[in-house]
């Protein structure tokens, strides 16, 4: 066991866990931030996507010991009122079916648009291809990312 100081959504937290513990499980089990989802655990699906210093990161394979001073942002901290342009676009387009993958999709899209505010459709496809949606909402995901890009 070791002590870690983590900056999550602008707040500093102390946690005591084994240093190989993935960030995902620290968020979910220690900090009770369960918006970040578990699905594959091996960096294949994107359900667990968070931002580490603004970069979309698979939290399921990111050991807590690798975080250091980095700023972690989760879906709960993406915006105060749930009104980040990507969240608004998701509501507008009414993207979700079961919704389980969508927090990860939104976090991936938000990081991507931060880095590429005016993407081509092909760039959107390439960026969003790393997140699986078992319900098959892919058409709506494309549409919502394009809308968020426009509305930014």
């Amino acid at each position, binding site marked *: 066991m070791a002590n870690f100081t983590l900056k999550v959504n602008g707040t500093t937290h102390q946690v005591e866990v084994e240093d190989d513990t993935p960030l995902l499980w620290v968020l979910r089990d220690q900090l009770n931030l369960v*918006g970040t989802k578990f699905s594959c655990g091996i960096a294949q699906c994107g359900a667990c996507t968070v931002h580490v210093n603004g970069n979309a990161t698979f939290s399921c394979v990111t050991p807590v010991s690798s975080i250091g001073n980095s700023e972690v942002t989760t879906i709960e901290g993406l915006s105060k009122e*749930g009104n980040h342009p990507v969240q608004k676009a998701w509501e507008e387009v009414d993207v979700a079916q079961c919704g389980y993958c969508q927090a990860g999709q939104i976090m991936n899209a938000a990081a991507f648009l931060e880095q590429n505010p005016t993407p081509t459709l092909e760039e959107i496809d390439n960026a969003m291809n790393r997140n699986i949606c078992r319900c098959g909402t892919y058409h709506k995901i494309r549409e919502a990312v394009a809308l968020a890009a426009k509305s930014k």
Partner: protein
Amino acid sequence: MKTQTGTSRRDFLKIAGTTAGGLVIGFNWFSCDSPKMEVLSIEQVLAQAKSFNSFLSISPTGDVVIYSPNPELGQNIKTSFPMVVAEELEADWEKVRVVQANLDPQKYERQLTGGSGAMPHSWERLRKAGATAKFLLVTAAAQTWNVPVTEITVSKGMIRHEGSGKKGHFGEFVDLASTLSAPEEVTLKDKKDFTIIGTPIKNVDAKDMYTGKPMYGLDFHREGMYYAMIQRAPFGMKISNVEDSAARGVLGVTNVVTFGSSVAVVGTSTWPLMKAKKLLKISYEPDGIVESTTDHDKLFADLLATGKADVKRKDGDVASAFKSAAKIVTAEYQCPFLAHSPMEPENFFAHVQADKVELVGPTQTPDRARQETARLLGIPPENVSVEITRLGGGFGRRLRADYVIEAVEVSRAIQAPVKVTWSREDELTGGAYRPAVRYRFEAALDAAGTLIGYKLRGVGMNAGNTTRETNFPSGAVDHVLIESIDHASSITTNAWRAPITNFLAYAEQSFLDEVALAVGKDPVDFRLELLSRAKTNPVGALGYDVDRMIGVVKMAKEKSNWGKNSSVKQGFSVYFSHKSYVAQVADIEVSGGIPTLKKITAVTDCGLVVNPTGANHQVRGGIVDGMGHAMYTNLTFEAGVPKQRNFDTYRLIRLKEVPEIETHFVDSGFDPTGLGEPALPPTGGAIANAIFAATGRRLRSQPFIEQKEFSDIQLQIKRA
């Protein structure tokens, strides 16, 4: 339309003001014309609301609470059910709050999600629930104002009397209305007057989903609960020895318990359990037949050749038809096992106490969870409560209660509340799968190319019946023989979205393509020819409505510009399942020898469309699902253990692999029928038939990418 309210039914347990009413908190609730009203929390609303029936409570503030009893797994029921109630109530949708009801067989019938059956089952019940409450509110208003009921109008949560100029919102009349008795019969709205049904109302959980609120079973937490993960035995094996000392040594692990052929590691958080599970040393021994995919290939061949079959349908004299045939076409089709792989892995919370059990989690069949728990523990079912969380997908996996019972077992063993979580590896290796199936089709045609004889022989596993003998082309052919053979497998199988038809439709629709082309007929005309036969002179029992099927075929032909553009190679497919009709056309363009899948056009007749957004979702989602599994996904077994253990080898379709999907809905005037499943079955056939049209390669097995016929086809997918 007048309709009986059926007050004796459980759904309509009359109206009891079960909660406090009339509480006024500080400011003016009582006029809708007042400036912006403060938004109450759902708890505040519920504290004041009066119950009108099991679907509906209304608070004196005019807030309407609609209970949605069926589990929500992405089929949008939690939005579409309340839309139906609100429509007949004439509610203001802005004032509607939706609450997921817990399991309550006293209040609700058929509280489950499966078979695309919720809307057909509940459509009228929901309408009556809304209409009955509206009637009571109107009656209360009429009494209050001393005016005739017939002179009152209702719209958007406001009740008005034109003559006297009086008006008021629902909330003003709930106290009185909830003391009146429900009418024997109520008048339902004319469909042409619908203002909520048929509009794209947004998902009621959208905000919570997009801001990361806890709402799924995996998110559930209770102070003091334990976590558990389970190592399950390979299929056909049982435990002979468990060596768990290394697992117990992992920091955070509090216990290891064995029950049946499962070993549970228990602890205070998830990650230590994932590590500890890998350290378990469990020896197994055979406990029945241990199966591998290679055995299945031989098994299918043997059973198709000589297995004893159940005759499911026999029309005419098949032997003579085949003897007199000018042409015979034969083909075999096979599909692999599949896992359900919902994005949210299986999980459940259980707290077994002395005289009761509390269950919380994602289930498509809450009552089954309750019944199996009660049976296991030998207690009355009423002592088991089930809270239904939102489901991160289901696809049929959560029809079973195996993972609920595991949580109950662990809680009983450790005498504490526990949440059992499955890893993705657990989900893929401990599943309850769509079983592998093989079909053999034979068609006899006369000299004019008319289908005179049709034989289908299917071998499945634990499926009972692998055929759908009243489905098309049954009814359209004089001589038909349909037989089904079942193999009892030690591998656990289960319904998987559109059970049986998820593959049968592909096989049938591909085979019909083969038959049409063998006699030089256009595949769509060939189907229409058969359908007109089924209409004018049907043979035996039909499970489908011929006119509705013809309707989707013709509309798909028109919308897809079938056969009009010689540079586009098209594949056609049509299927009836879960009371709905879906025709699909896949378009492939070939350029420089490279085929590109450009578009799938889908025409659906699911009766009235309740929510166009939801309907589009279900059709597109079904097509993406059908395409993904037909193209890419395979699950193979070796000695009772699946070889594909996670999404790196168990390949699911991704965003860049979906083409444009164009959807159309037939306005057939029927009440709504199922939509969670029917769009999936036709897709594999439409794509396979288009691939044949474009390349001359016939794909008779799935997944396509693993077939040798497909190995040199560089199929491209064009994004929308």
